[in-house]
């Protein structure tokens, strides 16, 4: 099971890093979400992997199998924060797209006009239509 979890975290992180390095905001956002998934699974595994074991023991059972409850609390915090953060990124990228009519994420001032400008149709929203009608 360790191998499965480790491979899972590794593959997700790899895909996430690839996506984050893209030029357009949509792949970057998907990459950020993937990265937060892989972080969460990783955090879960840091207490050691245990199946069918309770995190909290009640009563006098000193030798019962148990799983580390702390990583679960950490994951909960991390999930809440990354969920909020994804929402923030989505809203800000939409704002940037509507204001500058381009969803390129880089800021190179020397780059000429976008070689393949992102149109609203490409991502399913046309800002002109949205504002005009």
């Amino acid at each position, binding site marked *: 099971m360790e191998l499965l979890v480790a491979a899972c975290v590794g593959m997700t992180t790899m895909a996430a890093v690839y996506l984050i390095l893209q030029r357009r905001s949509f792949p970057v956002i998907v990459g950020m979400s993937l*990265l937060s998934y892989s972080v969460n699974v990783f*955090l879960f595994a*840091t207490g050691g992997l245990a199946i069918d074991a309770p995190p909290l023991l009640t009563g006098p059972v000193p030798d019962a199998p148990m799983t580390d409850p702390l990583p679960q609390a950490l994951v909960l915090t991390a999930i809440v924060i990354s969920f909020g953060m994804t929402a923030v*990124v989505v809203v*800000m990228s939409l704002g940037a797209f509507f204001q*500058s009519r381009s969803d390129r*994420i880089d*800021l190179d001032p020397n780059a000429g006009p976008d070689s393949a400008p992102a149109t609203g149709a490409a991502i399913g929203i046309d800002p002109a239509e949205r504002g005009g009608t």
Partner: protein
Amino acid sequence: MMHLPVLPVVLPAVVAAVMVLAVPHDLITRRVLSVAGMVALTGLALAALMLPEPALYRLGDWPAPFGIILQLDRLAALMLMLAAVLGLAVVLYAIGTGWDRLGVHFHPLMAFQMMGLNGAFLTGDAFNLFVFFEVMLIASYGLMTHGGGGPRIKAGVQYVVVNLAGSAVFLFALGTIYAATGTLNMADIGVKAAAIEHDGLVRIGAGMLMVVFAIKAALVPLHIWLPATYERAPGPVAALFAVMTKVGVYAILRSLTLMFPAGTETGTALAEILRVTGGATLIVAMVGLYGARDFGRVITWSVIGSVGTLMLAMTFGQAGATAAGLYYLVHSTLAGAALFLLADLILTRRGTLTLARGPRLAQGGLIAALTMAAAVAMAGMPPLSGFLGKLMILEALWGQWGLWWLVIGTAILAIMGFARAGSTLFWQAEESDAPALPHPAQPLAFSAVAGLIAAQVLWTLAAGPVLGWLEDAAAALHDPAPLIRAVLS
């Protein structure tokens, strides 16, 4: 004052909540609340500086290392004071220039930002540090895009993405350290990590942690996000961000003294890597400053350069060098913030910060004089605190001649860069025949900038007693055993 360590976190949170919920549409009341909050924070920081002993605060009275602990030692108190003074100046400036009218929630966001900063300085728990970093960053995302506009929001998206990636690495690092040591309390990590023999996992975790802090501190090559962000952020926000890079420096210093101290193998390896990185940062930043064609860029490079200088001083693991670094940290934050505010004053009067012949400025004489003072301080020329700070760092580096000449050589580049920027902005404008465009005088904004400069003059005049106090603080940092005992008892 049993609850003193938690008040700098609770107070801004309450002020921000009151502003959002109780006074949603009243800018005047918000301004009053915001200024009163910053003044109260300054008072709290003053009380913290007066404490004879480090104060510990166990949240929920849980015993360490299981609960979260706040530790208010001299370093934390110093950083609280720095943040409060800067926050006060920034709020006054934003009120004086009307920046806070351009968006709805400037003042609540400022308060949340102060809450995150203060929490990051106070906490003694590594995961809690992550949480306070996030509080600070969430508020900074809002502040960074305050006022809106396409280029600013685009730069904001980049800033958010870089910091989110940094947060992910932070979580990976904390998970690794927890898996290796079984604890997240900083003092406890220090004890457990030193006891582990084959500490490969600890070292990987510590390395990743330093990568995160290096992103925040903008060390080369992880500085790439900073110039565009600071240049496009609103002026007062950029001034506040001058302390954000120093949060990274603070976290590195805290890690290298409490979690991975100089004696351990991990700590020594990290310190050496960080010192080389600091040298590289200094070179890149000062060459960048000299080559910049825009006054905003000049300032951002000077801020990055100050972080490089700090890394040289703070990675030596000696109390003297760390004390010099702390002195320079306070100075460079104040100088950087003053320069960002001045750049905003120039931008509104000139329309652009590009270093080319331009029109005369309204209130040009006063702005030129203040810029001169701030630039002299930032470049490290006498008589202001930058000179004393660099002198102390050079004294601490005595014998390390390579680093010695690096600090001096880059200072010359900085002086030339600032001199060129100043002569282009102010002297060449004097040659223009057209009168300056009229602009309101904004006395409050000018007094905020003058206050920051005055704080540096004070810092220079009080250098003797301050350095003695800082040496005690640094000695306590490098001998963490009493603090660890107090935390774990």
